[in-house]
């Protein structure tokens, strides 16, 4: 699906993240390298506590690595000022957080339009894009409802619409199908897949194999380390080099 011809849109180079110090030190992520090309959707799977959210927060510039480098669209996140980073996030990156993060005092349409408005897009234009995005995940009719007037699954779809609104080039989604039934979950994955086929890049955390299977590549984390990936199967020569396969 996704021959990433040019530079990857997202690149993690030997990234580690240690929380705390001394006796309470937690190695949330250790020496992780990962690239997401233009048009590519990558899924991350792993048990609870394996570092998936940590990885996503680093990839979106919400957190900084202890060592290693995170590059978004060719730029080292560590080299950006607070303002530069905020702007990069606002313009290029869409997030779906594990806890959704919808603003309770805004309607679905206002929530979905927020990233564009913060970026200086006119209200009318922002609302039009928000409605389109809500429509793409099947909740156009909820545009004027507030979060507390929606079911968990509906809120989830609004959060996804917000992440996809406008021209986000990098979509980071943490368990975006958590509260959705199998049909709705699948339709969300179809939307995400279509966005990537149109040229966006996606990083998706999920514990559901059927959802991860929409990705071009599945990366498996355990204890903060990448233990395997479904990347292209090894070439025949490589197998011959290591006849035992281990």
């Amino acid at each position, binding site marked *: *699906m996704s021959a990433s011809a040019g530079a990857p849109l997202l690149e993690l180079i030997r990234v580690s993240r240690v929380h705390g110090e001394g006796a309470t030190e937690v190695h949330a992520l250790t020496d992780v390298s990962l690239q997401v090309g233009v048009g590519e959707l990558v899924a991350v*799977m792993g*048990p609870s506590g394996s570092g998936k959210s940590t990885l996503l927060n680093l990839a979106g510039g919400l957190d900084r690595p202890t060592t290693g480098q995170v590059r978004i669209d060719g730029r080292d996140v560590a080299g950006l000022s607070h303002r530069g980073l905020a702007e990069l996030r606002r313009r290029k990156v869409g997030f779906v957080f594990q806890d959704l993060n919808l603003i309770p005092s805004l309607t679905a349409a206002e929530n979905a339009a927020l990233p564009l408005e913060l970026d200086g897009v006119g209200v009318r234009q922002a609302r039009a894009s928000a409605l389109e995005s809500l429509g793409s995940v099947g909740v156009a009719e909820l545009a004027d409802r507030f979060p507390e007037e929606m079911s968990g699954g509906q809120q989830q779809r609004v959060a996804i619409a917000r992440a996809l609104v406008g021209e986000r080039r990098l979509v980071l989604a943490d368990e975006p199908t958590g509260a959705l039934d199998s049909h709705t979950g*699948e*339709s969300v994955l*179809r939307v995400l*897949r279509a966005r990537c086929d149109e040229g966006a890049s996606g990083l998706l955390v999920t514990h*559901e*194999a*059927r959802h*991860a*299977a*929409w*990705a071009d590549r*599945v990366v*498996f984390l355990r204890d903060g380390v990448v*233990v*395997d*990936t*479904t990347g292209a*199967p090894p070439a025949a020569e490589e197998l011959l080099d290591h006849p*035992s*396969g*281990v």
Partner: protein
Amino acid sequence: MSIRQGLLALLAQEPMYGARLRSEFEDRTGGTWPLNVGQVYTTLTRLERDGLVEVSGRPDAEGRIAYRLTDAGRAEVTRWWSTPVDRDSTPRDELAIKLALAVTVPGVDVQRVVQTQRTATLRHLQDLTRLKSRNDPAGVPRHELAWQLVLENLVYAAEGEVRWLDHVEASLARAAVGRREETRQRDVREADRGDGADASAEGHPGTSEGGREAHGIPATSRRRRR
């Protein structure tokens, strides 16, 4: 072919004769896949013909012949552990048999076996999803709908396999914690009594020494390695 692979995996532990191979196989797979002695002996004969096993020493007092792995047999066992179960050419049971043996034969990196299988199953799931994504779920003609439902059946089966693998991994992790805790409590008890030197004389919970003695092997020589 899982009987063949299963017997080889058991022989990697130590040489055994046919009747014992049969009972070990049944023990470890909870009697879910009963074998008859005939099957075991024909399989052993073929393995010997293929150069994977050989007779080990002389027949015992009762005339039973034990077999052991050759180098080629050992290589075959290693290959089996490091290769995912192939879903096209084997009965689906092979995966369950394989994991049942992996957790009981010493020296197998079970996590690795689990992950290798999980990656292979995810690849299969990706292939199925690619087929699925060609059709629009809404408004498909009847025969396409039928095809979609067949694909979904395969997707659910593969998904179930991944969930089971997750479960296996979580159970192993819990068992490891349990063993550590058991050891810790035993150490504490012994420290209390001040006779830690005696620790190895205690029986290990969960192994049926009686059943083992019945196969003519002293229980002590067969205690599971830790």
